[in-house]
């Protein structure tokens, strides 16, 4: 997204785009299955992120989905010919540049396409450090898979970008809104409540089939570290955003919050380490689910403290 913003005249870092879109989230959805396991999300869905960016920044984004793959490819090619840089939602499994062992059926991956050369698209993929290439047919397949969180060929690009941003207005609003969303959720599966709900579910694994329990723990790690960009389920990117915001507004409270969020990210990573140990344990060793539950609950406490500080503080 950052690349796209730069292209349209708004030099925003990836962290700034993430923060301004209010994308930081948590949701534990036991009724939505991904490979037989419940969906755990650490950020909002692509569409919500785009809408967040529109609302918070006054950017006007065009979002398009298509019913036919060929239609979708034609539209993409036409936009690229016009010199536009376009965002797309795709499946991970069908992207040939993804390492073999990382290709799972996850359909809410996001990438930016910035050029077409012959039969290949040039892509900026958030997972990889350098631009990647992808053939027309392969990307078409990835854009049009059916299933959970199906992309339907979603493309998005800005049609209006403000020349400047009034950070003093935009940043506190976006930050407080995101903090509120995490702290005051009406449903138990989202926000800080969602983290505690997952902790409870981990505690209950004691009574479940051992194989399933271990797979569940491994699944949490994957949702947090394999899918989450930047580490610790997007918490480090958000800390980076808070730091940048703090410098722009010359507000030390934001800098402090950034430090707190970094520590929260570290705690998420410690939690993942504990999970990895649990999944690698031998058959004869019993897993202490209550310790894992307690750790996640302390992560929830620490993260809630950051949001309270942001919500109650003066951010201007």
């Amino acid at each position: 997204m950052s690349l796209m913003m730069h292209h349209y005249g708004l030099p925003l870092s990836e962290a700034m785009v993430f923060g301004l879109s209010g994308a930081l989230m948590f949701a534990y959805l036991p009724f939505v299955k991904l490979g037989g396991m419940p969906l755990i999300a650490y950020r909002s869905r692509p569409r919500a992120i785009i809408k967040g960016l529109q609302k918070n920044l006054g950017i006007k984004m065009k979002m398009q989905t298509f019913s036919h793959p060929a239609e979708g490819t034609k539209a993409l090619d036409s936009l690229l010919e016009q010199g536009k840089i376009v965002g797309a939602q795709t499946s991970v499994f069908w992207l040939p540049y993804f390492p073999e062992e990382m290709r799972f059926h996850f359909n809410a991956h996001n990438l930016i396409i910035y050029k077409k050369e012959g039969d290949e698209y040039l892509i900026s993929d958030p997972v990889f450090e350098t631009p990647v290439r992808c053939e027309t047919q392969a990307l078409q397949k990835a854009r049009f898979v059916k299933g959970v969180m199906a992309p339907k060929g979603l493309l998005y690009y800005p049609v209006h970008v403000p020349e400047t941003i009034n950070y003093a207005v935009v940043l506190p609003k976006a930050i407080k809104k995101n903090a509120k969303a995490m702290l005051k959720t009406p449903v138990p599966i989202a926000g800080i409540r969602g983290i505690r709900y997952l902790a409870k579910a981990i505690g209950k694994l004691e009574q479940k089939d051992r194989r399933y329990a271990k797979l569940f723990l491994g699944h949490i790690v994957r949702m947090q570290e394999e899918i989450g960009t930047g580490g610790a389920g997007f918490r480090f990117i958000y800390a980076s955003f808070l730091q940048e915001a703090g410098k722009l507004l010359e507000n030390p409270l934001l800098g402090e919050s950034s430090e707190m969020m970094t520590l929260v990210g570290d705690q998420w990573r410690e939690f993942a380490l504990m999970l990895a140990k649990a999944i690698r344990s031998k058959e004869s060793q019993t897993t202490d689910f209550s310790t894992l539950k307690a750790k996640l609950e302390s992560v929830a406490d620490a993260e809630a403290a950051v949001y309270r500080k942001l919500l109650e503080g003066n951010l201007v």
Partner: protein
Amino acid sequence: MDNSKVPQHNISTYANNKKAIYATDENGKYGIITSSGWDVEEAATKQALQELERLAIKAYDQALSGQASPLYFHMYNRRMDLQTLAQAMGMFQWRIKRHFSPTAFDKLSAKMFARYADTLGISVQELRELPDRRANGA
């Protein structure tokens, strides 16, 4: 996370690629560090792969002994499960399940074979057969 603590475990699941991690320098300033992987992530990815492999091997044996159709094997071999396959095909699960029976599977139309093959990303010929065990590593 401190720069110096960003793991560089060169994990096999990255296949020599690197991921971007956000970490702080000695002054606490955030930057992007490339990481060759964290063994924690590798353990979780491998666990998921091993589980799918286990299911694929079981399915292979069942297909070999005529208890299930090759489709049952190919589903797991392509890292799908019943729900994923059904949704990718745009079909109800009960219909897919029916096609796990060798007799029902053999009676499918050419069009249906083509649909399954396309969804799984294999050829129709591959779909209707089981790969050689040795080549499969099973």
